[in-house]
């Protein structure tokens, strides 16, 4: 008896929990365990799917501008408009191109940042790098854009500096490159934070070993670090690409009004012209486009982490 009470409390709690778990989820169902683990996330995302179903319904109805109600009967008119009106092709192409460029540039800058943050021996530097990542979040998108206007505007700091050496002011914001730049700045923290855990998982000794075998740092990056970091790259890449593709705020505030993405066209339909049907249609088509892109990435590069851990089995 006395020996039993000597068990730490946590052990006993664990025993009870194990008992409960075994009762609810017997070992014979072990094969289904991964699905049980996925269930909460799938249900949460299910909320969005319910919303998509609503949208699928409205996408088949057209707006009557005499009553501002959607029609009772179904038709494919919205889809026809979405594929035939040139405006939507323009914004779709612009978003897709931006998603690709932004992903590439963001990953190129995120990797050294994450690498330094993870590998540095100075804990102060690590914290500074971490805090610098979060700095832009806290001023919000709109105020951030105002900050950029002060820096990059016609009378902004950069143009004033250029003026000192005799270069006339030029338009640095309110164009496509400015939108790309703003997106990279917005996405960089996400990419770094996705890469960092993948990098921490790569033992430093592995690099040291490569070095001692005569590989210079570029070679050890190429043949050791980058391949091992692949899960992180795929995670970060997919995140950055989908978020850029569907972004609304950056094109709206750094594009000067003429650099709309698909999400801006969707915003216009929902909020400006009150055409929920066409808005829903565009939203669904964007979801399809995004999912195809994700599927493409997965089939080209594999679905991330999984490849690594399974190979070792």
């Amino acid at each position: 008896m006395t020996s039993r009470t000597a068990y730490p409390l946590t052990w006993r709690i664990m025993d009870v929990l194990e008992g409960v778990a075994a009762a609810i989820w017997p070992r014979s169902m072990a094969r289904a365990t991964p699905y049980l683990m996925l269930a909460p996330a799938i249900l949460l995302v299910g909320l969005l799917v319910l919303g998509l179903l609503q949208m699928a319904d409205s996408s088949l109805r057209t707006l009557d501008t005499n009553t501002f109600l959607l029609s009772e009967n179904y038709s494919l008119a919205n889809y026809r408009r979405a594929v035939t009106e040139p405006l939507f092709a323009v914004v779709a192409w612009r978003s897709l191109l931006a998603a690709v460029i932004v992903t590439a540039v963001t990953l190129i800058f995120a990797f050294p940042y994450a690498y330094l943050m993870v590998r540095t021996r100075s804990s102060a530097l690590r914290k500074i790098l971490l805090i610098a990542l979060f700095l832009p979040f806290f001023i919000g998108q709109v105020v951030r854009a105002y900050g950029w206007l002060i820096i990059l505007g016609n009378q902004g700091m950069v143009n004033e500096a250029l003026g000192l050496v005799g270069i006339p002011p030029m338009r640095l914001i309110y164009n496509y490159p400015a939108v790309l730049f703003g997106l990279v700045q917005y996405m960089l923290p996400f990419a770094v934070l996705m890469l960092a855990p993948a990098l921490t998982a790569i033992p430093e000794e592995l690099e040291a070993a490569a070095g001692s075998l005569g590989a210079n740092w570029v070679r050890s990056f190429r043949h050791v670090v980058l391949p091992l970091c692949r899960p992180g790259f795929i995670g970060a890449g997919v995140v950055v690409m989908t978020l850029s593709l569907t972004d609304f705020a950056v094109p709206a505030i750094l594009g000067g009004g003429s650099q709309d993405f698909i999400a801006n066209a969707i915003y216009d339909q929902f909020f400006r012209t009150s055409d929920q049907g066409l808005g829903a249609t565009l939203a669904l088509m964007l979801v399809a486009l995004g999912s195809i892109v994700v599927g493409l990435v997965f089939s080209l590069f594999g679905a991330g982490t999984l490849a690594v851990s399974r190979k070792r089995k």
Partner: protein
Amino acid sequence: MKELSMPYINRRLLLQGAVALGGASALGLRGAFAQEPAKPAEIIVRAWGGSWVDSLKAGVSDPFTKATGVAVRHDLTEDNEIQPKVWAAVAQKRVPPIHINWDTTTNATKSALRGVTEDLSDLPNLKNVTDLAKPVGLDGFPIVNTYGYVYVLAYRPAAFPDGAPKSWKDLLDPKYKGRVAFYNDGIGFHFPAQVAGGGKLEDIPANMQPAWDFIAKMKEQKPLLGEDPDFTTWFQNGEIDAACTISTNAREARKNGIDIKWVVPEEGCKFDTDGLWIPKGLPENELYWAKQYINFALTKEAQQVWLDGLGLPGVVPGLTPPADLIGDPSYPTTEEDFKHLIRISSKVQVENESEWFGKFKAIMQG
């Protein structure tokens, strides 16, 4: 549950009684105190932020609270963005998130056509208002217009050394390339563009090709496109020399010390109105007090203070214009002033607006 225990009162009767009994008080309802439905703790009025809400608070909300004891909370959600929220609430038979929507007449008309607005034709103070208060092309008063405004051509005098621009065509001068701004859906510019492009206003909406041609020319100027706050920001930071915007935004920049003026060019400017309306689905007593709020907003006292802040002409006769706007084309008072302004019925506007926005976007995004 509170509403159920209350004896049922016919609203129309009550409002009429209020007029009859309370002639002297500003609200016209003090005398009806015994019959008043229960006061809600607060009513929520959707408003635009910044100087817009400050003016409303000073002119209408605060005096209303003082007179009735009903607190007013302002919801600063954009008019475009509250619309789907209210529509969904009515469709799902929920209590709407706001009591009163301060809205553009065009947007409000969409809500009226959809049938989500309460009828306001029994407001006692409607008998004192000008024609401007009545929405054109709708039955009764699903909305009450509360003031008008002009989409002027605002400009920096320094950028126009030869004097004020006389025509919208002046903006096609190459030296204004990248220095002109419009609303991102082109609102306010479609109709003057129709005239500037050689077309007739009577042809709206049947033939607006002249407008699209003119806008396509304007596209070559690489204009900036934005919303209300952008214009003030851009003028303040020297990003633009001219813009087609509501005079209030230009006046705001001027108050902040920016040298800025505005004109109504020879082709004219779009004149439009904003209004107040109440969404369906409110409990009976809250509806009553929401109506009282709008009724109060139509008094001369409330209009004077509210619209001084906005610098816009109201719908009650005898208002004194702010000192800086006497004789200003953006503050039309006489018939002569209105001759230079373009007013298209909200019915025509809402029926065709999506198409116009779409065309404008297609040109500008291309």
